[in-house]
Protein backbone atom coordinates (compact mmCIF):
# COMPACT_ATOMS: atom_id res chain seq x y z
CA UNK A 1 0.00 0.00 0.00
CA UNK A 2 1.16 3.47 -0.88
CA UNK A 3 1.56 4.95 2.61
CA UNK A 4 1.82 8.50 1.34
CA UNK A 5 -1.46 8.10 -0.50
CA UNK A 6 -2.89 6.62 2.68
CA UNK A 7 -1.93 9.62 4.82
CA UNK A 8 -3.02 12.07 2.13
CA UNK A 9 -6.38 10.33 1.92
CA UNK A 10 -7.08 10.46 5.62
CA UNK A 11 -5.91 14.06 5.90
CA UNK A 12 -8.20 14.97 3.02
CA UNK A 13 -11.19 13.18 4.53
CA UNK A 14 -10.58 14.69 7.97
CA UNK A 15 -10.19 18.18 6.52
CA UNK A 16 -13.46 17.74 4.68
CA UNK A 17 -15.28 16.63 7.78
CA UNK A 18 -14.33 19.56 9.99
CA UNK A 19 -15.87 21.99 7.55
CA UNK A 20 -19.39 22.11 6.18
CA UNK A 21 -19.81 19.51 3.51
CA UNK A 22 -22.33 17.86 1.25
CA UNK A 23 -22.86 14.27 2.30
CA UNK A 24 -23.22 12.82 -1.22
CA UNK A 25 -20.11 14.63 -2.45
CA UNK A 26 -18.28 13.32 0.61
CA UNK A 27 -19.32 9.74 -0.08
CA UNK A 28 -18.19 10.12 -3.69
CA UNK A 29 -14.83 11.36 -2.54
CA UNK A 30 -14.59 8.38 -0.26
CA UNK A 31 -15.44 5.85 -2.97
CA UNK A 32 -12.92 7.48 -5.35
CA UNK A 33 -10.20 7.28 -2.71
CA UNK A 34 -11.15 3.70 -1.83
CA UNK A 35 -10.52 2.66 -5.41
CA UNK A 36 -7.14 4.40 -5.47
CA UNK A 37 -5.95 3.18 -2.06
CA UNK A 38 -7.08 -0.41 -2.31
CA UNK A 39 -6.38 -0.85 -6.01
CA UNK A 40 -10.01 -1.78 -6.54
CA UNK A 41 -11.65 -1.67 -9.93
CA UNK A 42 -14.79 -0.09 -8.56
CA UNK A 43 -16.41 0.82 -5.28
CA UNK A 44 -19.72 2.02 -3.92
CA UNK A 45 -21.42 3.03 -0.71
CA UNK A 46 -24.73 1.28 -0.25
CA UNK A 47 -27.20 2.40 2.44
CA UNK A 48 -29.94 0.36 4.06
CA UNK A 49 -33.24 2.16 3.64
CA UNK A 50 -35.72 1.13 6.34
CA UNK A 51 -38.35 0.81 3.61
CA UNK A 52 -36.62 -2.52 3.07
CA UNK A 53 -34.10 -1.80 0.34
CA UNK A 54 -30.39 -1.35 -0.24
CA UNK A 55 -29.74 1.86 -2.15
CA UNK A 56 -26.59 3.29 -3.71
CA UNK A 57 -25.50 6.57 -2.17
CA UNK A 58 -22.29 6.94 -4.20
CA UNK A 59 -20.28 4.90 -6.68
CA UNK A 60 -16.87 5.27 -8.31
CA UNK A 61 -18.42 5.34 -11.76
CA UNK A 62 -21.82 5.99 -13.30
CA UNK A 63 -21.59 2.93 -15.51
CA UNK A 64 -25.05 1.39 -15.62
CA UNK A 65 -23.49 -2.07 -15.31
CA UNK A 66 -21.89 -1.19 -12.00
CA UNK A 67 -25.01 0.46 -10.61
CA UNK A 68 -27.02 -2.59 -11.60
CA UNK A 69 -24.69 -4.72 -9.49
CA UNK A 70 -25.70 -2.77 -6.40
CA UNK A 71 -29.35 -3.04 -7.31
CA UNK A 72 -29.10 -6.83 -7.75
CA UNK A 73 -27.84 -7.19 -4.22
CA UNK A 74 -31.33 -6.52 -2.98
CA UNK A 75 -31.95 -10.16 -3.89
CA UNK A 76 -28.58 -11.72 -3.21
CA UNK A 77 -24.97 -10.73 -2.85
CA UNK A 78 -22.26 -9.64 -0.44
CA UNK A 79 -23.91 -6.35 0.61
CA UNK A 80 -27.14 -8.08 1.57
CA UNK A 81 -25.24 -10.65 3.60
CA UNK A 82 -23.04 -7.97 5.14
CA UNK A 83 -26.08 -5.97 6.14
CA UNK A 84 -27.78 -9.00 7.68
CA UNK A 85 -24.75 -10.32 9.58
CA UNK A 86 -22.96 -7.06 10.37
CA UNK A 87 -19.72 -8.71 9.28
CA UNK A 88 -17.38 -8.22 6.35
CA UNK A 89 -18.23 -10.54 3.46
CA UNK A 90 -15.70 -11.65 0.87
CA UNK A 91 -15.74 -13.56 -2.37
CA UNK A 92 -12.32 -14.12 -3.84
CA UNK A 93 -13.35 -15.70 -7.12
CA UNK A 94 -16.79 -15.02 -8.51
CA UNK A 95 -15.90 -16.97 -11.65
CA UNK A 96 -15.06 -20.07 -9.66
CA UNK A 97 -17.24 -23.19 -9.37
CA UNK A 98 -20.42 -23.08 -7.27
CA UNK A 99 -20.50 -19.33 -6.60
CA UNK A 100 -22.37 -18.24 -3.51
CA UNK A 101 -24.64 -15.82 -5.28
CA UNK A 102 -25.11 -17.20 -8.80
CA UNK A 103 -27.08 -14.35 -10.40
CA UNK A 104 -24.95 -11.68 -8.81
CA UNK A 105 -21.71 -13.52 -9.64
CA UNK A 106 -22.73 -13.85 -13.27
CA UNK A 107 -23.58 -10.16 -13.59
CA UNK A 108 -20.37 -9.18 -11.82
CA UNK A 109 -18.30 -11.38 -14.10
CA UNK A 110 -19.97 -9.82 -17.16
CA UNK A 111 -19.03 -6.42 -15.80
CA UNK A 112 -15.41 -7.57 -15.51
CA UNK A 113 -15.22 -8.16 -11.77
CA UNK A 114 -13.91 -11.35 -10.24
CA UNK A 115 -13.63 -10.55 -6.56
CA UNK A 116 -15.83 -8.57 -4.23
CA UNK A 117 -15.80 -7.33 -0.67
CA UNK A 118 -18.56 -5.79 1.43
CA UNK A 119 -17.47 -3.97 4.59
CA UNK A 120 -20.14 -3.04 7.12
CA UNK A 121 -20.94 0.54 7.99
CA UNK A 122 -21.79 0.09 11.62
CA UNK A 123 -22.84 2.46 14.33
CA UNK A 124 -22.90 0.66 17.65
CA UNK A 125 -25.41 -2.14 17.16
CA UNK A 126 -26.86 -0.90 13.89
CA UNK A 127 -25.66 -1.70 10.36
CA UNK A 128 -26.60 1.29 8.23
CA UNK A 129 -24.97 0.17 5.00
CA UNK A 130 -21.82 -1.18 3.39
CA UNK A 131 -18.73 -0.15 1.47
CA UNK A 132 -18.70 -2.46 -1.55
CA UNK A 133 -15.40 -3.05 -3.35
CA UNK A 134 -14.85 -4.87 -6.65
CA UNK A 135 -11.62 -6.32 -8.01
CA UNK A 136 -10.84 -7.35 -11.58
CA UNK A 137 -8.73 -10.36 -10.67
CA UNK A 138 -9.42 -13.28 -8.39
CA UNK A 139 -7.93 -13.32 -4.91
CA UNK A 140 -9.59 -10.27 -3.49
CA UNK A 141 -7.97 -7.89 -1.06
CA UNK A 142 -5.30 -8.69 1.52
CA UNK A 143 -5.63 -8.27 5.27
CA UNK A 144 -3.90 -4.88 5.28
CA UNK A 145 -6.28 -3.66 2.55
CA UNK A 146 -9.28 -4.87 4.51
CA UNK A 147 -8.22 -3.05 7.66
CA UNK A 148 -7.97 0.18 5.71
CA UNK A 149 -11.20 -0.63 3.90
CA UNK A 150 -13.03 -1.08 7.20
CA UNK A 151 -11.58 2.21 8.44
CA UNK A 152 -12.90 3.89 5.29
CA UNK A 153 -16.32 2.32 5.88
CA UNK A 154 -16.22 3.70 9.44
CA UNK A 155 -15.30 7.14 8.11
CA UNK A 156 -18.26 6.95 5.73
CA UNK A 157 -20.53 6.23 8.69
CA UNK A 158 -19.18 9.15 10.69
CA UNK A 159 -19.46 11.41 7.66
CA UNK A 160 -23.14 10.60 7.32
CA UNK A 161 -23.82 11.64 10.88
CA UNK A 162 -21.43 14.53 11.19
CA UNK A 163 -23.84 17.30 11.88
CA UNK A 164 -25.96 16.08 14.67
CA UNK A 165 -25.96 14.63 18.11
CA UNK A 166 -25.71 10.95 17.31
CA UNK A 167 -26.60 9.67 20.73
CA UNK A 168 -30.18 9.66 19.56
CA UNK A 169 -30.94 6.59 17.49
CA UNK A 170 -33.52 8.75 15.71
CA UNK A 171 -30.78 11.03 14.40
CA UNK A 172 -29.25 8.17 12.43
CA UNK A 173 -32.60 7.39 10.83
CA UNK A 174 -33.32 11.04 10.02
CA UNK A 175 -29.86 11.69 8.55
CA UNK A 176 -29.96 8.58 6.37
CA UNK A 177 -33.25 9.68 4.83
CA UNK A 178 -31.78 13.11 4.15
CA UNK A 179 -28.81 11.50 2.39
CA UNK A 180 -31.04 9.19 0.35
CA UNK A 181 -33.21 12.09 -0.76
CA UNK A 182 -30.13 14.11 -1.71
CA UNK A 183 -29.18 11.25 -4.00
CA UNK A 184 -32.59 11.48 -5.68
CA UNK A 185 -32.18 15.24 -6.23
CA UNK A 186 -28.82 14.60 -7.84
CA UNK A 187 -30.25 11.92 -10.14
CA UNK A 188 -33.02 14.32 -11.21
CA UNK A 189 -30.41 16.98 -11.94
CA UNK A 190 -28.29 14.53 -13.92
CA UNK A 191 -31.30 13.68 -16.08
CA UNK A 192 -32.19 17.32 -16.71
CA UNK A 193 -28.61 18.24 -17.63
CA UNK A 194 -27.99 15.12 -19.72
CA UNK A 195 -31.13 15.85 -21.77
CA UNK A 196 -30.37 19.56 -22.12
CA UNK A 197 -26.83 19.02 -23.40
CA UNK A 198 -27.32 15.61 -25.02
CA UNK A 199 -24.60 14.04 -22.91
CA UNK A 200 -24.46 10.86 -20.84
CA UNK A 201 -25.27 10.67 -17.15
CA UNK A 202 -21.63 10.27 -16.16
CA UNK A 203 -20.64 13.48 -17.87
CA UNK A 204 -23.65 15.31 -16.51
CA UNK A 205 -22.72 14.24 -13.00
CA UNK A 206 -19.14 15.37 -13.47
CA UNK A 207 -20.30 18.80 -14.65
CA UNK A 208 -22.56 19.21 -11.63
CA UNK A 209 -19.79 18.12 -9.29
CA UNK A 210 -17.15 20.37 -10.86
CA UNK A 211 -19.48 23.36 -10.84
CA UNK A 212 -20.35 22.82 -7.17
CA UNK A 213 -16.70 22.57 -6.22
CA UNK A 214 -15.62 25.57 -8.28
CA UNK A 215 -18.43 27.78 -7.03
CA UNK A 216 -18.00 26.60 -3.44
CA UNK A 217 -21.53 25.28 -3.10
CA UNK A 218 -22.98 22.02 -1.84
CA UNK A 219 -23.53 19.51 -4.61
CA UNK A 220 -27.10 18.86 -3.42
CA UNK A 221 -27.90 22.58 -3.38
CA UNK A 222 -26.58 23.00 -6.93
CA UNK A 223 -28.61 19.99 -8.02
CA UNK A 224 -31.79 21.20 -6.33
CA UNK A 225 -31.48 24.75 -7.67
CA UNK A 226 -30.93 23.33 -11.16
CA UNK A 227 -33.91 20.98 -10.98
CA UNK A 228 -36.15 23.71 -9.54
CA UNK A 229 -34.88 26.38 -11.93
CA UNK A 230 -37.07 27.59 -14.74
CA UNK A 231 -34.33 27.07 -17.31
CA UNK A 232 -32.07 24.16 -18.08
CA UNK A 233 -29.14 26.43 -18.90
CA UNK A 234 -25.90 25.30 -17.33
CA UNK A 235 -23.92 26.79 -15.70
CA UNK A 236 -27.04 28.33 -14.19
CA UNK A 237 -27.65 32.09 -14.22
CA UNK A 238 -26.26 34.06 -11.26
CA UNK A 239 -27.47 32.57 -8.01
CA UNK A 240 -30.19 34.38 -6.12
CA UNK A 241 -30.19 34.50 -2.35
CA UNK A 242 -32.07 31.44 -1.05
CA UNK A 243 -35.70 32.11 -0.17
CA UNK A 244 -36.52 31.30 3.44
Amino acid at each position, binding site marked *: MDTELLSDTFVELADTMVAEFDVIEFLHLLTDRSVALLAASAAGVVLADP*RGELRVAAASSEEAELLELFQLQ*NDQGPCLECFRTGRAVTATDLAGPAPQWPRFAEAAARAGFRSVEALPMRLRDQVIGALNLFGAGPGGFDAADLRIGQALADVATIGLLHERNVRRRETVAEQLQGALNSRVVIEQAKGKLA*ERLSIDMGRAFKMLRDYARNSNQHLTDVARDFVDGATADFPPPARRQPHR
Partner: protein
Amino acid sequence: MTGSRALAVWAQVAAHAAAQGQRPSVADVCAVAVSSAQLSGAWVVAARGSDPDFVMCVTDPVSEQLAELQLTLGEGPCRDVLASAAPVLAGDLGDAESARRWPAFTPAACQLGAGALFAFPLIVGAIRAGVLGLYRSSPGPLPGRRFGDLLILADAATVMLLGSEHGDAENGDGAALDGQAPDLALHRAEIDQATGMLTVQLGVPVAAAFARLRAYAYSQDRRLADVAGDIVARRLRLGRDPGQHGGP
Protein backbone atom coordinates in the same frame (compact mmCIF):
# COMPACT_ATOMS: atom_id res chain seq x y z
CA MET B 1 -35.06 -6.84 0.26
CA THR B 2 -37.39 -7.18 -2.68
CA GLY B 3 -39.99 -4.49 -2.11
CA SER B 4 -42.48 -6.95 -0.62
CA ARG B 5 -42.74 -4.81 2.49
CA ALA B 6 -43.92 -1.83 0.45
CA LEU B 7 -46.52 -4.01 -1.26
CA ALA B 8 -47.81 -5.26 2.11
CA VAL B 9 -48.14 -1.73 3.47
CA TRP B 10 -49.88 -0.44 0.33
CA ALA B 11 -52.25 -3.40 0.49
CA GLN B 12 -53.33 -2.19 3.95
CA VAL B 13 -54.13 1.24 2.52
CA ALA B 14 -56.11 -0.28 -0.34
CA ALA B 15 -57.97 -2.54 2.08
CA HIS B 16 -58.86 0.39 4.33
CA ALA B 17 -60.26 2.30 1.35
CA ALA B 18 -62.13 -0.73 0.05
CA ALA B 19 -63.79 -1.21 3.43
CA GLN B 20 -65.27 2.29 3.04
CA GLY B 21 -66.22 1.64 -0.57
CA GLN B 22 -63.88 4.43 -1.71
CA ARG B 23 -60.81 4.91 -3.84
CA PRO B 24 -57.62 5.12 -1.75
CA SER B 25 -56.73 8.61 -0.58
CA VAL B 26 -54.45 10.36 1.88
CA ALA B 27 -57.17 9.87 4.51
CA ASP B 28 -56.60 6.11 4.26
CA VAL B 29 -52.85 6.61 4.53
CA CYS B 30 -53.36 8.62 7.73
CA ALA B 31 -55.70 6.03 9.22
CA VAL B 32 -53.34 3.12 8.49
CA ALA B 33 -50.36 5.10 9.83
CA VAL B 34 -52.15 5.72 13.12
CA SER B 35 -53.27 2.15 13.63
CA SER B 36 -50.08 0.39 12.50
CA ALA B 37 -47.76 2.62 14.54
CA GLN B 38 -50.21 2.80 17.45
CA LEU B 39 -50.31 6.58 17.48
CA SER B 40 -53.03 9.02 18.46
CA GLY B 41 -53.59 10.93 15.24
CA ALA B 42 -52.24 11.99 11.85
CA TRP B 43 -52.58 14.73 9.27
CA VAL B 44 -51.37 15.64 5.81
CA VAL B 45 -50.49 19.18 4.82
CA ALA B 46 -49.91 20.14 1.17
CA ALA B 47 -46.92 22.30 0.27
CA ARG B 48 -46.65 25.40 -1.82
CA GLY B 49 -43.10 25.91 -2.99
CA SER B 50 -40.90 24.86 -0.10
CA ASP B 51 -43.38 25.69 2.67
CA PRO B 52 -46.29 23.84 4.19
CA ASP B 53 -49.44 25.51 2.92
CA PHE B 54 -52.78 23.99 3.84
CA VAL B 55 -54.26 21.02 5.62
CA MET B 56 -55.44 18.23 3.31
CA CYS B 57 -56.80 15.79 5.89
CA VAL B 58 -56.79 15.00 9.59
CA THR B 59 -57.86 11.95 11.60
CA ASP B 60 -59.10 13.86 14.69
CA PRO B 61 -59.52 17.35 16.18
CA VAL B 62 -56.19 17.38 18.03
CA SER B 63 -54.35 16.55 14.81
CA GLU B 64 -56.18 19.39 13.10
CA GLN B 65 -55.11 21.80 15.82
CA LEU B 66 -51.50 20.60 15.72
CA ALA B 67 -51.45 21.01 11.93
CA GLU B 68 -53.03 24.46 11.96
CA LEU B 69 -50.86 25.64 14.85
CA GLN B 70 -47.68 24.95 12.88
CA LEU B 71 -49.03 26.83 9.87
CA THR B 72 -50.05 29.79 12.01
CA LEU B 73 -46.78 29.95 13.93
CA GLY B 74 -44.63 29.19 10.89
CA GLU B 75 -42.66 26.92 13.20
CA GLY B 76 -42.54 23.21 14.04
CA PRO B 77 -41.48 19.78 12.82
CA CYS B 78 -43.68 19.98 9.71
CA ARG B 79 -41.88 23.08 8.49
CA ASP B 80 -38.47 21.65 9.36
CA VAL B 81 -38.91 18.46 7.38
CA LEU B 82 -39.57 20.37 4.16
CA ALA B 83 -36.53 22.56 4.73
CA SER B 84 -34.21 19.67 5.54
CA ALA B 85 -35.81 17.00 3.32
CA ALA B 86 -35.48 14.57 6.23
CA PRO B 87 -37.98 13.29 8.80
CA VAL B 88 -38.18 14.64 12.34
CA LEU B 89 -38.77 12.12 15.11
CA ALA B 90 -39.51 14.05 18.29
CA GLY B 91 -40.25 11.27 20.73
CA ASP B 92 -40.55 13.58 23.70
CA LEU B 93 -41.97 17.06 23.27
CA GLY B 94 -41.24 17.65 26.94
CA ASP B 95 -37.48 17.45 26.52
CA ALA B 96 -35.03 20.32 26.22
CA GLU B 97 -34.29 19.55 22.57
CA SER B 98 -37.91 20.16 21.51
CA ALA B 99 -38.17 23.36 23.53
CA ARG B 100 -34.98 24.60 21.89
CA ARG B 101 -36.01 23.72 18.36
CA TRP B 102 -39.60 24.98 18.51
CA PRO B 103 -39.89 27.47 21.38
CA ALA B 104 -43.36 28.69 20.42
CA PHE B 105 -44.83 25.46 19.07
CA THR B 106 -43.69 23.00 21.75
CA PRO B 107 -45.52 24.36 24.81
CA ALA B 108 -48.69 24.86 22.78
CA ALA B 109 -48.46 21.32 21.37
CA CYS B 110 -48.02 19.87 24.86
CA GLN B 111 -51.05 21.87 25.99
CA LEU B 112 -53.06 20.25 23.22
CA GLY B 113 -52.08 16.84 24.57
CA ALA B 114 -49.21 15.81 22.31
CA GLY B 115 -46.39 13.89 24.01
CA ALA B 116 -44.51 12.89 20.86
CA LEU B 117 -44.60 14.16 17.30
CA PHE B 118 -43.25 12.61 14.11
CA ALA B 119 -43.14 14.36 10.75
CA PHE B 120 -42.25 13.02 7.31
CA PRO B 121 -41.60 15.16 4.25
CA LEU B 122 -43.70 14.07 1.27
CA ILE B 123 -40.97 14.49 -1.32
CA VAL B 124 -39.32 12.87 -4.30
CA GLY B 125 -35.93 14.52 -4.59
CA ALA B 126 -36.60 18.16 -5.45
CA ILE B 127 -40.36 17.58 -5.71
CA ARG B 128 -42.12 18.75 -2.55
CA ALA B 129 -45.74 17.66 -2.22
CA GLY B 130 -46.36 18.20 1.48
CA VAL B 131 -45.89 16.78 4.96
CA LEU B 132 -47.28 13.80 6.88
CA GLY B 133 -47.54 14.61 10.59
CA LEU B 134 -48.33 12.19 13.39
CA TYR B 135 -48.65 12.52 17.14
CA ARG B 136 -48.98 10.36 20.19
CA SER B 137 -50.41 11.62 23.45
CA SER B 138 -47.75 9.77 25.46
CA PRO B 139 -44.04 10.42 24.88
CA GLY B 140 -41.79 7.64 23.61
CA PRO B 141 -39.76 6.80 20.52
CA LEU B 142 -41.15 5.29 17.36
CA PRO B 143 -40.35 1.56 17.32
CA GLY B 144 -37.73 0.88 14.64
CA ARG B 145 -39.92 -1.40 12.59
CA ARG B 146 -42.68 1.21 12.38
CA PHE B 147 -40.34 3.82 10.93
CA GLY B 148 -39.91 1.85 7.71
CA ASP B 149 -43.67 1.39 7.37
CA LEU B 150 -44.27 5.12 7.89
CA LEU B 151 -41.71 5.94 5.18
CA ILE B 152 -43.62 3.70 2.80
CA LEU B 153 -46.91 5.32 3.81
CA ALA B 154 -45.36 8.74 3.25
CA ASP B 155 -44.38 7.61 -0.27
CA ALA B 156 -47.99 6.58 -0.92
CA ALA B 157 -49.25 9.96 0.29
CA THR B 158 -46.69 11.73 -1.90
CA VAL B 159 -47.78 9.91 -5.00
CA MET B 160 -51.43 10.60 -4.21
CA LEU B 161 -50.85 14.32 -3.68
CA LEU B 162 -48.87 14.59 -6.91
CA GLY B 163 -51.44 12.58 -8.83
CA SER B 164 -54.39 14.65 -7.75
CA GLU B 165 -52.54 17.91 -8.25
CA HIS B 166 -51.54 17.08 -11.78
CA GLY B 167 -54.88 16.04 -13.12
CA ASP B 168 -54.82 12.32 -12.55
CA ALA B 169 -58.59 12.71 -12.47
CA GLU B 170 -59.18 9.99 -15.06
CA ASN B 171 -56.84 7.57 -13.35
CA GLY B 172 -57.85 8.76 -9.92
CA ASP B 173 -55.82 8.31 -6.82
CA GLY B 174 -56.22 4.63 -7.49
CA ALA B 175 -53.43 4.91 -10.03
CA ALA B 176 -51.14 5.10 -7.06
CA LEU B 177 -52.12 1.66 -5.93
CA ASP B 178 -53.30 -0.24 -8.96
CA GLY B 179 -50.40 -0.84 -11.26
CA GLN B 180 -47.83 1.41 -9.76
CA ALA B 181 -47.36 0.27 -6.18
CA PRO B 182 -44.97 -2.45 -7.27
CA ASP B 183 -43.03 0.03 -9.37
CA LEU B 184 -42.29 2.36 -6.51
CA ALA B 185 -41.60 -0.49 -4.10
CA LEU B 186 -37.98 -0.65 -5.19
CA HIS B 187 -36.39 2.68 -5.87
CA ARG B 188 -34.62 3.05 -9.25
CA ALA B 189 -32.25 5.85 -10.20
CA GLU B 190 -33.58 5.70 -13.78
CA ILE B 191 -36.96 6.93 -12.58
CA ASP B 192 -35.33 10.03 -11.11
CA GLN B 193 -33.15 10.55 -14.17
CA ALA B 194 -36.10 10.15 -16.53
CA THR B 195 -38.03 12.67 -14.44
CA GLY B 196 -35.23 15.19 -14.91
CA MET B 197 -35.04 14.45 -18.62
CA LEU B 198 -38.77 15.00 -18.98
CA THR B 199 -38.57 18.51 -17.52
CA VAL B 200 -36.64 19.37 -20.69
CA GLN B 201 -38.49 17.11 -23.14
CA LEU B 202 -41.88 18.38 -22.00
CA GLY B 203 -40.89 21.85 -20.85
CA VAL B 204 -42.61 21.41 -17.49
CA PRO B 205 -41.63 21.71 -13.81
CA VAL B 206 -40.31 18.60 -12.11
CA ALA B 207 -43.50 17.65 -10.25
CA ALA B 208 -45.46 17.70 -13.51
CA ALA B 209 -42.70 15.73 -15.26
CA PHE B 210 -42.96 13.00 -12.64
CA ALA B 211 -46.76 12.93 -12.91
CA ARG B 212 -46.55 12.63 -16.73
CA LEU B 213 -44.03 9.80 -16.44
CA ARG B 214 -46.31 7.86 -14.12
CA ALA B 215 -49.40 8.63 -16.18
CA TYR B 216 -47.67 7.40 -19.33
CA ALA B 217 -46.54 4.14 -17.70
CA TYR B 218 -50.05 3.59 -16.34
CA SER B 219 -51.69 4.29 -19.70
CA GLN B 220 -49.34 1.85 -21.42
CA ASP B 221 -49.73 -0.71 -18.64
CA ARG B 222 -45.97 -0.84 -18.26
CA ARG B 223 -43.76 -0.84 -15.23
CA LEU B 224 -42.55 2.62 -14.27
CA ALA B 225 -38.93 1.45 -14.02
CA ASP B 226 -39.07 -0.03 -17.54
CA VAL B 227 -40.51 3.14 -19.08
CA ALA B 228 -37.89 5.18 -17.23
CA GLY B 229 -35.18 2.84 -18.50
CA ASP B 230 -36.35 3.38 -22.10
CA ILE B 231 -36.34 7.15 -21.66
CA VAL B 232 -32.84 7.16 -20.15
CA ALA B 233 -31.57 4.89 -22.92
CA ARG B 234 -33.19 7.29 -25.40
CA ARG B 235 -35.38 4.59 -26.89
CA LEU B 236 -38.41 6.63 -25.94
CA ARG B 237 -39.22 10.34 -25.89
CA LEU B 238 -42.42 11.82 -24.54
CA GLY B 239 -43.95 14.62 -26.59
CA ARG B 240 -45.47 17.83 -25.31
CA ASP B 241 -48.96 16.58 -26.14
CA PRO B 242 -50.18 13.96 -23.68
CA GLY B 243 -50.97 11.49 -26.44
CA GLN B 244 -47.75 11.92 -28.39
CA HIS B 245 -44.70 9.78 -27.91
CA GLY B 246 -42.08 8.25 -30.11
CA GLY B 247 -38.60 6.90 -30.59
CA PRO B 248 -35.45 9.02 -30.57
